[in-house]
């Protein structure tokens, strides 16, 4: 904990937050919100939480800003401004915010000190994970082992929530009128969007390496910061880069709506399927040590490591498909025909 850097980054974050609210142009507010996300990731890295910083960088600063800009593209850039009753509503809002802040400050004095070694979490819970993880599961990254093995049930429901979010966007936005649909072209036809050769060339060269890096992040999540969520979002972001530099119809040709929903399903199915397989083999749900009966030449400890890799792959597939599906739905307003 470096207090000098802490203070400077927190000042920048407060300035960014004020600017996001006070700028009256919605596109600029979305972009400054992207800068706010960048700085939050920096703060979490400085506190030592690298997995959280990775997820915030990929989801908050990357995909979330692009989705905001796509949504503003469909609607308007103008902030609505009510002319009547402004003074009273502002006063009530100010009083409510101040009261909430005061209550939180009073409750905060009851907490144990920041990172003190005598808090209940540090006394009873953390020493067990720190000493037992390498012995139980042979995985050095404690965060990944807690997420995927000791608390694997929660992660399964998180993946299901991501899939539900994709379904919700389809339910709200998708339109199926017959006369709206046009024929989708075959893939790899270079359409006449805005023909910018430089951006197309560089995007075409960079996308394979981005996907390779994302696969490295998924597979190496046991030893370095990473894991399933971050890798899946980076693959989705590489497809969004292709969609931006060419146009959306190319991505619809590559990953159609049916493929996206199918892959989202398969991701959650892999996760729940591995848990169910452990159930069939005679142990609890998501107890990977029983997988040593099925996998050849592994003992119980290595079977837990391989089980974690399996569910990370399932999470990555689901997240990638849902990110692409949400982007295409927002940008084409649910009609799947735009050459944006």
């Amino acid at each position: 904990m470096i207090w000098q850097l802490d203070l400077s980054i927190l000042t920048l974050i407060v300035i960014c937050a004020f600017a996001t609210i006070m700028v009256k142009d919605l596109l600029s507010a979305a972009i400054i919100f992207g800068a706010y996300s960048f700085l939050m990731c920096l703060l979490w890295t400085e506190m030592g939480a690298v997995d959280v910083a990775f997820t915030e960088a990929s989801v908050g600063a990357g995909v979330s800003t692009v989705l905001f800009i796509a949504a503003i593209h469909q609607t308007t850039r103008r902030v609505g401004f009510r002319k009547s009753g402004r003074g009273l509503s502002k006063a009530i809002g100010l009083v409510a915010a101040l009261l909430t802040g005061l209550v939180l400050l009073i409750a905060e004095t009851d907490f144990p000190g920041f990172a003190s070694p005598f808090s209940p979490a540090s006394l009873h819970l953390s020493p067990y994970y720190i000493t037992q993880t390498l012995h139980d599961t042979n995985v050095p990254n404690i965060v990944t082992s807690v997420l995927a093995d000791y608390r694997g049930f929660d992660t399964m429901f998180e993946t299901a929530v991501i899939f539900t979010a994709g379904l919700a966007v389809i339910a709200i936005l998708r339109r199926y009128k017959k006369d709206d649909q046009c024929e989708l072209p075959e893939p790899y036809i270079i359409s006449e969007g805005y023909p910018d050769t430089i951006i197309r060339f560089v995007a075409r060269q960079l996308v394979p390496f981005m996907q390779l890096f994302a696969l490295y992040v998924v597979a190496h999540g046991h030893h370095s910061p990473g894991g399933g969520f971050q890798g899946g979002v980076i693959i989705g972001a590489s497809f969004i880069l292709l969609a931006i530099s060419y146009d959306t119809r190319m991505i619809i040709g590559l990953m159609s709506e049916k493929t996206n929903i199918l892959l989202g399903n398969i991701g959650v199915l892999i996760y729940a399927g591995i848990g169910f397989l452990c159930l069939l083999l005679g142990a609890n749900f998501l107890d990977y040590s029983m997988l040593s009966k099925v996998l050849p030449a592994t003992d119980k400890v290595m079977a837990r490591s391989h089980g974690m890799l399996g569910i990370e792959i399932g999470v990555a597939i689901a997240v990638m498909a849902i990110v692409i599906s949400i982007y295409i739905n927002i940008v084409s307003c649910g009609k799947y025909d735009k050459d944006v």
Partner: protein
Amino acid sequence: MDIIVILLSVSGLVFFFATTVGILRFPDFYSRMHAAGKGDTLSSLIMLLALVLYNFHDFNLANLLVALKILLIVVFIFMASPTATHAIIDAGYESGIQPWTKKPEEES
């Protein structure tokens, strides 16, 4: 070895400072993009080079791999940052921003 690291870091910081002054003080959008695109890339190269050299205090295989990864970041910034600059300037030109011209002096 430490002296080279300090020298490179300070010169990278000087270039960053020049970039920031350029962004604040130039009168026109196009000149500000010049400062941002070029100065940013060069400063990143010099500072990351300083960090690569600082890593070589003890010379073993793990440190070599980390140095290669940092050089990978440098290669990526060299490819991506000029493209992003080109994209922004193209968007500005298509939207119709006029370049700044020096106003003729008027006699009083």
